[in-house]
Structure formats: C-alpha cells, structure tokens
C-alpha cells in the first residue's frame, strides 16, 4: 500500500466528510466547472458524495446476522448469513466453527445465544481498528407470536440474544435476525 487512507475504518464512526476529500469551501480549480459530465467529476459532486458517505457510514450496522438456535438437539446455533462491514458469508456455518473474521455463536440455553466479536478488525486497506458493541437489535423470525431481547455491555464484544414465545417463556429452536453497531 503506497498510501494510508485518511481517518479510521468505518466502524469507528470517526471519519468525517473531510476524510473523504470534502471541504466546506470546496471549489473547482480556478473556478472552471465541469466541461463534460461524462468524463469529469466536479467539486459540487465531490462535496455531495463526501457528505452523504459520511452520513451513511455513521449509522450503518457493523453486522447483520441471520441465526437459528439449535435446542431440540442442543448444539451451537446455525449461522445462515452474516453481512459485516468487513465481509459477507456465502454459506451457512456452525456457530462454534466460524470462518476467519466472522463472529462465533454459542448456545446458552433454550432460545438464548451469545455472539462474540473480535476486539479488532481490518478494513479493505488492511487498516486495523478496535471494535466494541454500542447498539444492537434483534427480530424474531417465523410464523408465531413472540419477542426478543438483547443484552450487552457497551464497548464489549459479547452480545446475548434471547428469544421468547408469546407467553414470555424461552422459545426453543428460535430463528432471528440480529444487527449490531
């Protein structure tokens, strides 16, 4: 790598529009605007692009996971898919044998699992930055009534997700979609 990208990787939420080349006083060189929009990108476009990119990066989930608890035959959850800022899975994996770079998932009890992230990840340029959970959501998948709850320590690496049936009891073999920031 001949250059180091500005700022820090996206999940640190630290990069601002200036890191992407934006500037409050951005202008075309010597006031000369775009001559041919098919071949040129003007200061106006760079300004909008950098501001919008910074906005999207601020709220983008770090990871979205589709998981199924395995309680009838107790085992680690099955991870159907993971969409992370650092990569996406293409095949299912057992939670206790994650591919490199993807979170491990463990069964705690019926309808209750943990998802463990790494303390540091690398972006596309190999720039490493620390990670810690700040927000999380979950949604029970399926055809029956129920609910879910998430538990984590801010800045921690372990997310606990609990799924419940309509009566508020643990829901065995629950399936859900989880997001973390």
């Amino acid at each position: 790598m001949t250059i180091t990208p500005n700022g820090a990787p996206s999940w640190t939420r630290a990069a601002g529009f200036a890191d992407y080349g934006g500037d409050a006083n951005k202008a075309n060189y010597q006031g000369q605007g775009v001559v041919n929009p098919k071949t040129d990108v003007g200061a106006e476009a760079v300004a909008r692009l950098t501001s919008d990119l910074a906005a999207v990066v601020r709220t983008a989930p770090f990871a979205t996971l589709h998981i199924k608890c395995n309680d009838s035959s107790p085992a680690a959850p099955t991870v159907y898919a993971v969409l992370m800022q650092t990569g996406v899975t293409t095949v299912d994996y057992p939670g206790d044998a994650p591919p490199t770079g993807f979170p491990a998932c463990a069964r705690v009890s019926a309808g209750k699992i943990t998802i463990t992230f790494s303390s540091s990840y690398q972006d596309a340029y190999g720039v490493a930055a620390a990670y810690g959970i700040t927000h999380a959501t979950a949604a029970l998948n399926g055809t029956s009534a129920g609910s879910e709850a998430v538990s984590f320590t801010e800045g921690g690496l372990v997310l606990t997700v609990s799924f419940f049936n309509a009566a508020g009891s643990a829901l065995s073999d629950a399936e859900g979609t989880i997001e973390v920031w």
Partner: protein
Amino acid sequence: MLGGFAPLPLRLSPVARTGWSASAHARAAADLVAAKRTAPLAVLTYTSSGGGVTLHNCWSMVEIGTVSAYAPTLTRSATGVVLVTFPVQVADEYDISGTLCIRGARATLNGTTAGLRAIEIVSPNSVRVRTFDSSGVAADRKVTLKVF
C-alpha cells in the same frame, strides 16, 4: 487546466493508482445511492425508569453524540412511554438544510427478559415508544431504537 495535474473537476482516468476510472466512479455513485436508500437515519439506545429517561448513545446521519443541536430530545411521559424528538431541520457539513421525514422505526428491548413494544410515528420528526412486560403491562425498559 482540466486534468493537467488532476485538480477538480477530476478528470476520470483508467489509471487505478492515480486516477478514478469512469466505471469505478459509476459503481461508487450507484452503490452510495443504494446504501443511502436503506441507511438508518439514526440508531440510539436509552433507558427509561421512574427517574426519567437516559440516552446512552445516539448515532445519527449528522453526528455521533448525545449532546448537540441535532441530538434528539427524549421525554418519558408515563411508565414505558418515551417520546423521541429530533430537530425538524438538520443541516449537513455544507450547511445545506433538509427537513426530517421519519418513514419507519424499530425498537428492540435490551435485557434478558421477555417484553413487548409498540412504535408510533407521531410526526415527521418524532417517534413514541411504548414498552411492556410479556403480559402487556406497561414497563420501563432499556431500548435500542432504529429510525429510518
């Protein structure tokens, strides 16, 4: 001067190391627009209790933080009932303002016990969250709210 030593306007170039090709720019533009369409407006985590409501973190499209002109105001009106109000207008880094228009929201209860929640989009810039225990009785909870 255009493209002479690559000032803006940027002359699209196929040389990957020193330029930005038209095809790469096209992909970046399309993907950024796609990402914007589904990106949350804000995600925040709060706790409501008899003593009021505490905002732990708020990440919005305009900033990361809980105390600024653009941070939402959270008001607890009854057990488990919290109104989250964002500013009507928000400006980007170029001081270009836009009016907020919340199109959807989703809440997740934090903790390890079952419960229920309901979302009400009260106005283009405010959302009311109601939280309940698993029997449907109003209950204060810690909540993560995602707003679109």
